[in-house]
């Protein structure tokens, strides 16, 4: 057999998952000198970009500008996109092995970690990601219901998802109306009666994962006052020492902004965003109807681990917060893919530098790889996936050079296309997406919005005249 990677016999690669890691991997593969690669990217959704479309907040359009770089990758003549194709349902690993020399999974971290406390499943307690997917128009989540008739909500966590959720809950309808938030979410939030939103961090301000621009932004909301507790934003001795030692100016600035919030007099705006630190929920309390009515919190202090990390330790002092809506955002984990080895403990595909490992021998399996959050867990910013994908592609190229790849029976693009379209006749091409994109932008333009999203697969098909 001739080694693939030439014009006559291109290396055929399938990428499962059209988020940032998938695009960065495709880019690295297609730019590779001396190897001719064909990339077929499939995604469960008709639309590409993964969390850039379905995760990044609608009022953070600038972050979404990375899609222009992704579209350049997709414009490569040897790149194809198959949207609306569900791996594990429409097509299987066996199908991919029949058509590709290498398979790369970049499916992200699709589920939430649980808090593991009593009452977590009461009505009104939700994973933050469901709310995010809902307001961003993800077709699978558009019909979720959130009881926005409640007056008080708590968001557990102080990462960027937590602060996005808190901020969206506090935005006025007017502010949201100029974003690409899903139409139904805009309507629901317009009728929202939420008055107080608590953002709860288990550690102190120096350990909070949200960034300074994110913290500043909540201080400038049109119709919500931001409130912090003076005693919670002061650094404990260990945190102060760590910040001073590392001369970490970003953290110093973050603490300074939060202290300013603690000193602010509320301007009497109609909503309040209350940032709390050093508290952990220990129980959600319900009424007879099984709805959340309150959250019990324990106050924490910080304690250094042997390696020097400051971790939260409960003090034994409790308080009760009356809230009718709870969003948890305490971490994410990947979802196992049918037929792909998984590491339950880390919540990722079992891998070494991106090479998927056999669960029994712990040795790499031929031709299968992982990149992005499903490889390393949910850390970093969008761009972090670029060096991550580069590492995986490096492994793929080494293995190709060593002749250690899959031996597909039908390694050609048209056979793969026939197979995919046969399994999922409603699948979407990149041209379909570019057309949908134009239509969304046009629909939004009239209302002064970046776009008005299609949120139903049927609507997308109808818009394309299919």
């Amino acid at each position, binding site marked *: 057999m001739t080694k693939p990677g030439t014009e006559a016999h291109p290396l055929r690669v399938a990428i499962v998952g059209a988020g940032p890691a998938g695009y960065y991997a495709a880019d690295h593969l297609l730019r590779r000198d001396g190897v001719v690669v064909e990339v077929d990217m499939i995604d469960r959704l008709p639309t590409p970009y993964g969390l850039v479309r379905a995760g990044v907040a609608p009022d953070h359009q600038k972050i979404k500008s990375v899609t222009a770089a992704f579209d350049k990758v997709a414009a490569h003549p040897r790149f194809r996109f198959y949207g609306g194709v569900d791996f594990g349902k429409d097509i299987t690993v066996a199908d991919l092995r029949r058509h590709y020399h290498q398979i790369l999974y970049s499916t992200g971290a699709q589920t939430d970690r649980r808090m593991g406390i009593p009452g977590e499943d009461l009505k009104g307690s939700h994973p933050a990601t469901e709310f995010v997917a809902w307001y961003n128009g993800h077709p699978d989540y558009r019909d979720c219901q959130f009881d926005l008739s409640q007056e008080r909500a708590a968001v557990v966590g102080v990462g960027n998802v937590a602060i996005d959720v808190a901020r969206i809950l506090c935005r006025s309808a007017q502010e949201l109306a100029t974003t690409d938030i899903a139409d139904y979410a805009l309507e629901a939030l317009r009728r929202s009666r939420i008055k107080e939103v608590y953002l709860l961090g288990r550690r102190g301000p120096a350990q909070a994962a949200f960034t300074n621009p994110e913290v500043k932004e909540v201080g400038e909301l049109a119709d919500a006052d931001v409130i912090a507790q003076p005693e919670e934003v002061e650094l404990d001795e260990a945190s102060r020492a760590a910040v001073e030692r590392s001369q970490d100016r970003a953290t110093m600035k973050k603490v300074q902004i939060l202290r300013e919030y603690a000193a602010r007099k509320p301007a009497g705006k109609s909503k309040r965003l209350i940032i709390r630190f050093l508290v952990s929920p220990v129980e959600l309390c319900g009424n007879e109807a099984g709805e959340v009515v309150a959250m019990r919190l324990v106050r924490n202090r910080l304690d250094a681990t042997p*390696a020097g990390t400051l971790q939260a330790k409960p003090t034994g002092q409790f308080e009760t917060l009356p809230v009718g809506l709870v969003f948890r955002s305490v971490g994410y984990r990947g979802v196992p893919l049918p037929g792909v080895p998984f590491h339950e403990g880390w919540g990722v595909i079992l891998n070494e530098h991106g090479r998927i490992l056999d669960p029994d021998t712990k040795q790499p399996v031929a031709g299968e790889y992982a990149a992005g959050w499903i490889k390393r867990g949910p850390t970093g910013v969008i761009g972090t996936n670029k060096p991550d994908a580069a590492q995986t592609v490096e492994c793929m190229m080494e293995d190709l050079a060593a002749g250690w790849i899959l031996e597909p029976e039908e390694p050609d693009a048209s056979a793969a296309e026939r197979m995919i379209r046969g399994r999922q006749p409603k699948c979407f091409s990149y041209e379909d997406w570019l057309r949908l994109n134009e239509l969304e932008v046009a629909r939004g333009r009239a209302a002064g919005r970046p776009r008005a999203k299609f949120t139903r697969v049927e609507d997308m098909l109808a818009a394309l005249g299919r």
Partner: protein
Amino acid sequence: MNIASLLASKGSKVITIQPEQPVRQAVGLLAQHNIGALVVVDRTSRPVGIVSERDIVRAAASNERVFSEPVGSIMTRDVIIGLPHDDLASVGHTMTERRIRHLPVMESSQLLGIVSIGDVVKAQRDQYQGEVETLQTQILSEER
């Protein structure tokens, strides 16, 4: 970013040795796996120390017969153990300040993996590269 995500794509393979095994065997394992340290475990797989190439060089400098001696006689007993949720920045700081090049990671008395200073540096580099990449993309999009 925490140590768990570093181990997630590094694998949890840890090469171990027992304290009564000779230093010669430790040298063999270090060379075979191209690594700088071994975790020393007792019969119940409980870590009791760490033996690094530096420990061996230090011992060999004053005792040429060190290779036949037991690993337990030259290992470092006072081992700092990392936890999966330890964050990268504090681990990097602790390893630099205390001049440790290998950090065994454990959870509920189970050895989950080992992190080297090289792993920490690489993870930090990738983190910064990612941030630069993201900022550049945004700035370029504003210029258009």
